C-alpha cells in the first residue's frame, strides 16, 4: 500500500517562531519559579523567625540547625546504620507486598470465584488500622527485622491488591477478545494483555504504597528497635533534640519524594499512550 496518508499524521503544523527562552518560560519557567520561590520563602521565614527570637529553637529548631546536625551525622557516619536499617525494612516489606499483592490482584480481578473468596478478608483488613497488629506481630515474629517487615507488608500490600484489581477491571474487553482470536491462552492473555494494561494502576498503587511503607517503618521502629530512622526520631524527641527529629523527617520525606518521582517516570515509560493529551 502507498503512504499517501502518512505525512499528515506525523508532521504537526509549524508553530510561530518564539525565542527559546520564552518557550522555556511558558512550559516550565513560570511554574518552577513559583515552586522554588515558595520553598525558599518558607525556609527563609523559618530561619528568620528563629534568628529574630520569635520561635524558640529548642521547640521549632531551624533550617540551619537541621542542616548542621545532618552534616555532623553524615561526617561522623552515625546516620548510616539508621538509614540502612530503615531502608532494609522498607525494601523487604514493600518488595514483598508487590510480589504478593500484584498476583493476588490479578487473580481477584480475573476470577469471580477467587474474588468472592478473598474479598471478605481484604475488606476487613483494609477497614482495620493495620498498626494495631504490631503487638501480635511482635509476639509471633519477635522483635527483630521480621515483625517490622511484616508490619510494612501489612500496611502496603492491600493497596497493591486493590489497585491491581481495579486495573484488571478497566482492561478493554475488546483487547482480550482480540488476543483470544489470535489464539492466546489464558496465561498469555494475563501476561501480554491484562498485566501491561493494568500497569498504570499498579504503579499508582506503588506510589500510594510508598507513603504507607514510610509510615509503617517509623511506627515499627518506635518499639523494640536499636536503630533505624524511626528509632532516631523518637529517641531524639525524648531528649528534646528537635534538630535531630527533623533530620529523620527530612531523610524520610526525601526518600518518599525520590521514589514517587521515579515511579512517575516509570509510568510514563511504561504507559506512554496515557500521556498523549498531557504533552
Amino acid at each position: 500500500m502507498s503512504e499517501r496518508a502518512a505525512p499528515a499524521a506525523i508532521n504537526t503544523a509549524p508553530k510561530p517562531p518564539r525565542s527559546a527562552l520564552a518557550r522555556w518560560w511558558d512550559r516550565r519557567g513560570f511554574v518552577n519559579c513559583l515552586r522554588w520561590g515558595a520553598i525558599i520563602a518558607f525556609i527563609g521565614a523559618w530561619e528568620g523567625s528563629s534568628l529574630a527570637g520569635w520561635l524558640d529553637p529548642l521547640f521549632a529548631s531551624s533550617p540551619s540547625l537541621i542542616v548542621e546536625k545532618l552534616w555532623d551525622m553524615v561526617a561522623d557516619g552515625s546516620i548510616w546504620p539508621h538509614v540502612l536499617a530503615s531502608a532494609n525494612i522498607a525494601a523487604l516489606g514493600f518488595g514483598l507486598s508487590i510480589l504478593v499483592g500484584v498476583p493476588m490482584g490479578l487473580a481477584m480481578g480475573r476470577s469471580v470465584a477467587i474474588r468472592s473468596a478473598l474479598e471478605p478478608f481484604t475488606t476487613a483488613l483494609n477497614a482495620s488500622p493495620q498498626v494495631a497488629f504490631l503487638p501480635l506481630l511482635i509476639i509471633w515474629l519477635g522483635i527483630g527485622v521480621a515483625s517490622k517487615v511484616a508490619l510494612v507488608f501489612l500496611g502496603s500490600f492491600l493497596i497493591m491488591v486493590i489497585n491491581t484489581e481495579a486495573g484488571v477491571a478497566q482492561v478493554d474487553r475488546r483487547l482480550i477478545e482480540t488476543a483470544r482470536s489470535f489464539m492466546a491462552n489464558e496465561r498469555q492473555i494475563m501476561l501480554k494483555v491484562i498485566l501491561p494494561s493494568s500497569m498504570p494502576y499498579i504503579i499508582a498503587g506503588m506510589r500510594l504504597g510508598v507513603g504507607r511503607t514510610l509510615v509503617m517503618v517509623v511506627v515499627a521502629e518506635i518499639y523494640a528497635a536499636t536503630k533505624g530512622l524511626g528509632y532516631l526520631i523518637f529517641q531524639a524527641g525524648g531528649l528534646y533534640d528537635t534538630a535531630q527529629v527533623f533530620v529523620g523527617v527530612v531523610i524520610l520525606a526525601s526518600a518518599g519524594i525520590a521514589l514517587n518521582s521515579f515511579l512517575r517516570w516509570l509510568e510514563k515509560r511504561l504507559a506512554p499512550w496515557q500521556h498523549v493529551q498531557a504533552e
Partner: protein
Amino acid sequence: MTIEVQNISHGYLARDGVSHFQALADVSLTIESGTFVSFLGPSGCGKTTLLRIINGLITPTSGEIHIDGQRVDGPKSDRAMVFQEFNLLPWRTARGNVEFPLEVQGVSKAERDRVVNRVLAQVGLDKFGEFFPHQLSGGMKQRVGLARALGVGPDYLLMDEPFGALDPQIREMMQLELMKLWDSDRKSVVFVTHSVDEAVFLSDRVIMFGTSPGRIVADLTIDLPRPRWVDDEAIKTSAKFIQYRNDIWRLLKRQLNSMPAI
C-alpha cells in the same frame, strides 16, 4: 478449501436470564476458497455474530462450521480477524502489535522479524514500525490491524467492518489498496459491511442478511471485471455496478421497512 456454515442458530440471553434475542436463525451457506464474500445488512442482523462464530470466538447455540472439512471449535491460525475498532495494544509499537500473534504462537524471533518486515511493507508501513498506535492516524492503525492479520498467514481473512471507523476519503483509498493487495494472492475474504457500495465494489459475492431473526435474505454474485483498483472510476460508473447497487438497495429497503424500530 471451503467454509461450510451448517444450520447455525445463535441467541443472546439478556441480563434478566429470560429475555432472549435471536441473532441468527438456521443460517447455512458455503464459502468457496479464493473468493471475496461480503456480509451486508442492517444493524442487528447477525452478520458480525456469524463472522465471530466462523472465527471461533463464539460457540453457536446450535449448528456447526466446518473449514476444509474440520469442525471449528475455537480460533485457529488458518483464520485471522481484522476488527472495526482496530483493537491494537496501546503499549506496543506497530511492529510489536504485528508481532503479537506470532509471539503467542511461539514463532522464533528471527522468523517473527522476517514476517513482520514483509507484512509491514505490504501495507505500506515499513517506515512506521516503531510508532505507537496513538501516534498513527486511523487509516494507519487499520493498516497495522491488517498487517497483524496477514502475518498469521491465514487462508481466510475475516474483516469485521474494517473501514467503518474511517472517514470517507480514507475509506475509499483503503478499499483500493485492499483490492490491490487481494489481487496479489486472492485469499478468501469474508468482509462484513454496512455499505452497499463497498460490498459491490469489493466482492465476488454479496450475502444479504435480514433481521428478527437474523437470516440470509439474498445471495448475489457480483460479476464485475477485475482488477478493480486500476480504474475504479470506470467500474463505479458502469451500468452493471449501478444495477447491482440499485438491486441491493431495493432489497435493503424492504428489510428496513419490515424492522420494528430503527
